[in-house]
């Protein structure tokens, strides 16, 4: 519902002009992000109230111009045409007026009501530029407001101007003088504009602007003509425009677009002569002085390595330490939920309890990473705002470009976890900024090969079992191999499936350095973390339910159930026999046996977790208080023979129960849907050495990587009494089954190359806008991982090599391949030297 006093205000401007900061200033916290229909460009919108009514505000993507060459520009232009806003707030960088005003002129040609926000006036003044704002406003025929985006005081003034100008425009209609005449092209512009103005169906377009676009041969403008006019009329109009273009270019030897840009530039130069006084003394600016050090050929790589190391150290290492403080909160949350759910049964837990705890565990593994992501995203925001991110792209472009990537692939790769920790979800999300479509696709598919944080627990587990000695070396291999694989995959895809994709040049502004503001950094860190929690959280929970179901159903046959129940009864009977005549049996009269065994299990868990003498005593006190009658069963008073006997009997019963529960769960999984799939895949995975248990874990890990260790934990369950860690249990169980370090390496390699988790593939769908590419992002890594793992396992078996030897071999083969590909790609682009040679030849 739009009331007459409601406004639609659009912010338009070039990148780095401070548009987003001004948008934040205007709308405050009430803003949202969505996508423009059908494309992956962010649409940032918000709203505020002024005394007269609501003001809806949309922050258009930053564009230098309004052509149809880039997606952002097409989106911005479509929005301006179709929504006809009440006001366009054109944010320009006051220290770079000459370039900025090109967009202003285009907006005015589109007959849009414009207010010019002269941003970064402080910077301009520091650089020695003085701007006669009133004169500039008169010349352009628009209101001019000076703003300093990072300071908040100008907000009310800006809102007043917006309201006043929007009203003034409504009153005055949309007539404005023509600012730019196009010299030799002007007659054609006028003629075509008249033709357009007379065509029914094209009234909504500003005729002069559309005429210019048709003369330029703008692809999208041509489409508009075809959809709005009858075929014959459209053809006639377009043919006329094409003839005019050809005639002009033949007569003047000049591109129509060049003529248009040059004419605009002349007008801007004339305006600036009368409004801008520059008193620059030519001394290098602060940014230039910083760049001399930061971008210096020799020190640049050092600063880059230092930066990446700091990001890694602060967010991953320290962030991980932070989780030791946040994890107890999540564990406490689990305990609270556990106490609310129906209590555990003797053999089979109620479904509500099992599913509830499964969900809490899934959510917790995810929430555990929140501190890490908050820090990581804050650091990334600082890099972006300060202007250093663009420099990173500048430094690394050469290397990345050789493998089909782009300088701006750096950020997604860092987020994905170049060393040992990151997440592909924000990584894939961050590919949005890469202008080269093919490099962007290659980046999307190589980010999931990075070391996602959730892969780390499995690595740690396997290294703990099989590589006690070579642990450091293996960890080094794993954490550096990912980037090798990612680059090779990027190259492979670039020359194969991505071959036909559109590419774009690397032409990028290096913005001025400036200190990031706390507010903007925090806002982005919280926003991105929230997106992570929301997007990943919902998907992981949904899939957790599915995996849980697949692991539980169809369940055991009634015969097998009866069998387990019978063994349970036998154990209980044994317990009761042992306690015959024992006075402590009285404690059980008004409580069920299951409660006692649960009490015993809880007590044992609590005792295991109590690290100090004092904590241990606190546990005693707590359990004494919880049930004084049960307490002698777990801690027999000194010298009380009956209590000792009761305790012994209970321990035996609890142990039998745990064994039964484990057998029952394992049998359930074996017969479950997922277990059958895992078994069914054995013929395929046997070459990699994977048995059905590993298959099930890998399948489950598709939901979220974290669950691979959890599932392995279930599959390799041992009696609680043996008190062995998962490492020991899995070690014993797999060694019994003939597992070796070779299998571990095969598993590690497969896991390193394994498809992205479900959340990431959803993000791939969002970013590529295609289900086909999403399926590709699953199928390709699976095939690659299985091939590599099978090759390693088979070759290792045939040659009798150890896991470490095979890993070394794979690592150095991949490294050699990488260097070879890098060198060959470098040779295939000989443009510059040949250019020089040709020139030398022509002179000689």
């Amino acid at each position, binding site marked *: 519902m739009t009331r007459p006093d409601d406004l639609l205000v659009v912010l338009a401007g070039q990148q780095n002009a401070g548009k987003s900061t001004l948008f934040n200033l205007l709308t405050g916290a009430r803003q949202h992000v969505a996508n423009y229909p059908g494309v992956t460009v962010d649409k940032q919108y918000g709203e505020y109230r002024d005394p007269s009514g609501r003001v809806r505000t949309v922050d258009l993507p930053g564009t230098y111009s309004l052509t149809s060459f880039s997606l952002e520009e097409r989106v911005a232009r479509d929005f301006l045409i179709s929504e006809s806003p009440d006001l366009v707030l054109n944010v320009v960088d006051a220290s770079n007026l000459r370039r900025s005003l090109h967009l202003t002129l285009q907006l005015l040609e589109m007959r849009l009501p414009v207010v010019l926000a002269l941003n970064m006036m402080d910077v301009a003044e520091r650089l020695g530029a003085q701007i006669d704002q009133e004169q500039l406003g008169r010349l352009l025929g628009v209101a001019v407001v000076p703003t300093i985006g990072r300071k908040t005081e100008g907000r009310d003034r800006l809102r007043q101007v917006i309201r006043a100008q929007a009203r003034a425009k409504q009153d005055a209609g949309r007539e404005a003088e023509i600012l730019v005449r196009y010299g030799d092209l002007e007659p054609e512009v006028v003629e075509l504009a008249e033709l357009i103005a007379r065509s029914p169906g094209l009234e909504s377009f500003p005729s002069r602007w559309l005429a210019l676009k048709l003369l330029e041969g703008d692809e999208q403008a041509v489409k508009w003509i075809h959809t709005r006019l009858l075929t014959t009329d459209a053809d006639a109009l377009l043919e006329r425009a094409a003839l005019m273009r050809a005639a002009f270019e033949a007569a003047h030897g000049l591109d129509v677009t060049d003529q248009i840009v040059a004419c605009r530039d002349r007008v801007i130069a004339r305006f600036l002569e009368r409004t801008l006084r520059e008193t620059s003394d030519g001394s290098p600016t602060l*940014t230039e002085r910083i760049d001399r050090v930061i971008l210096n050929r020799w020190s640049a790589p050092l600063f880059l390595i230092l930066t990446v190391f700091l990001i890694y150290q602060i967010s991953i290492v320290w962030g991980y330490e932070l989780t030791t403080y946040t994890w107890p909160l999540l564990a406490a949350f689990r305990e609270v939920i556990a106490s609310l759910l129906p209590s555990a049964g003797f053999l089979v837990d109620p479904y509500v309890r099992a599913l509830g705890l499964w969900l809490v565990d899934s959510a917790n593994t995810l929430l555990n990473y929140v501190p890490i992501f908050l820090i990581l995203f804050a650091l990334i925001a600082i890099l972006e705002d300060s202007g250093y991110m663009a420099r990173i792209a*500048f430094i690394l472009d050469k290397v990345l470009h050789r493998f089909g990537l782009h300088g701006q692939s750096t950020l997604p790769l860092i987020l994905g976890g170049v060393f040992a920790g990151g997440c592909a979800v924000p990584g894939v999300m961050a590919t949005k900024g890469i202008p080269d479509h093919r490099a962007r696709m290659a980046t999307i598919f190589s980010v999931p090969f990075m070391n996602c944080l959730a892969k780390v627990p499995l690595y740690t587990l396997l290294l703990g079992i099989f590589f006690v000695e070579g642990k450091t070396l293996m960890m080094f291999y794993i954490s550096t191999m990912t980037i090798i694989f990612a680059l090779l995959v990027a190259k492979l895809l670039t020359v194969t499936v991505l071959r036909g994709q559109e590419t774009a040049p690397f032409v990028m*502004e290096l913005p001025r350095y400036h200190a990031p503001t706390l507010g903007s950094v925090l806002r982005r860190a919280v926003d991105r973390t929230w997106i992570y929690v929301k997007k990943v959280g919902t998907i992981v929970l949904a899939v957790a339910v599915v995996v849980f179901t697949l692991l539980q159903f169809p369940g055991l046959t009634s015969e097998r159930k009866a069998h387990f129940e019978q063994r349970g009864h036998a154990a209980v009977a044994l317990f009761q026999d042992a306690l015959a005549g024992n006075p402590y049996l009285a404690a059980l009269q008004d409580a069920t046996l299951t409660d006692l065994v649960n009490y015993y299990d809880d007590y044992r868990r609590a005792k295991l977790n109590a690290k100090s003498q004092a904590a241990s005593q606190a546990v005693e006190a707590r359990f004494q208080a919880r049930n004084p009658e049960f307490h002698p069963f777990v801690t027999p008073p000194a010298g009380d023979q009956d209590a000792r006997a009761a305790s012994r009997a209970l321990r035996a019963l609890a142990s039998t129960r745990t064994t039964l529960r484990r057998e029952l769960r394992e049998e359930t999984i074996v017969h479950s849907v997922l277990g059958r799939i895992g078994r069914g895949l054995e013929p395929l995975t046997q070459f990699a050495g994977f048995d059905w248990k590993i298959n099930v874990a890998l399948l489950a890990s598709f939901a979220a990587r974290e669950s691979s260790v959890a599932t392995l934990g279930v599959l390799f369950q041992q009696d609680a009494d043996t008190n062995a860690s998962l490492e020991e249990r899995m070690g014993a169980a797999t060694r019994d089954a003939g597992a070796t370090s070779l299998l571990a390496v095969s598993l590690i390699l497969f896991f390193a190359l394994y498809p992205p988790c479900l959340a990431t593939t959803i993000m791939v769908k969002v970013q590529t806008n295609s289900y086909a590419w999403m399926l590709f992002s699953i199928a390709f890594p699976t095939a690659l991982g299985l091939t590599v793992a099978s090759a390693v396992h088979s070759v290792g078996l045939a040659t009798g090599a150890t896991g470490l030897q095979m890993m070394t071999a794979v690592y150095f083969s991949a490294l050699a391949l990488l260097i070879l590909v890098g060198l060959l790609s470098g040779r295939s682009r000989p443009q510059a030297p040949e250019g020089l040679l040709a*020139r030398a030849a022509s002179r000689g």
Partner: protein
Amino acid sequence: MPSPVRLPLLVPTLNDIRSGQRARIRRHHARGAVRQRLMDLGLMPNVEVEMVRSAPFDDPVQIKLAATHIALRRAEAAFIEVFDDAS
């Protein structure tokens, strides 16, 4: 979309300018999106630019015009013709 045929130019280009030297742009030999982007950034004919430096691995290069610093690959720079009066 097939990329435009790229023949080595027989004329001085921005790619030939050494760090610290200046040059005046004569015209662009790139077309379409590249040409548009270069113009948008202010790299118009007759504009004087300064070659600031090349990246640590020699490519891309950083140029300066007025108050703007721009990074572009040598492949792109090789399609910007400059006047032969570089000093």
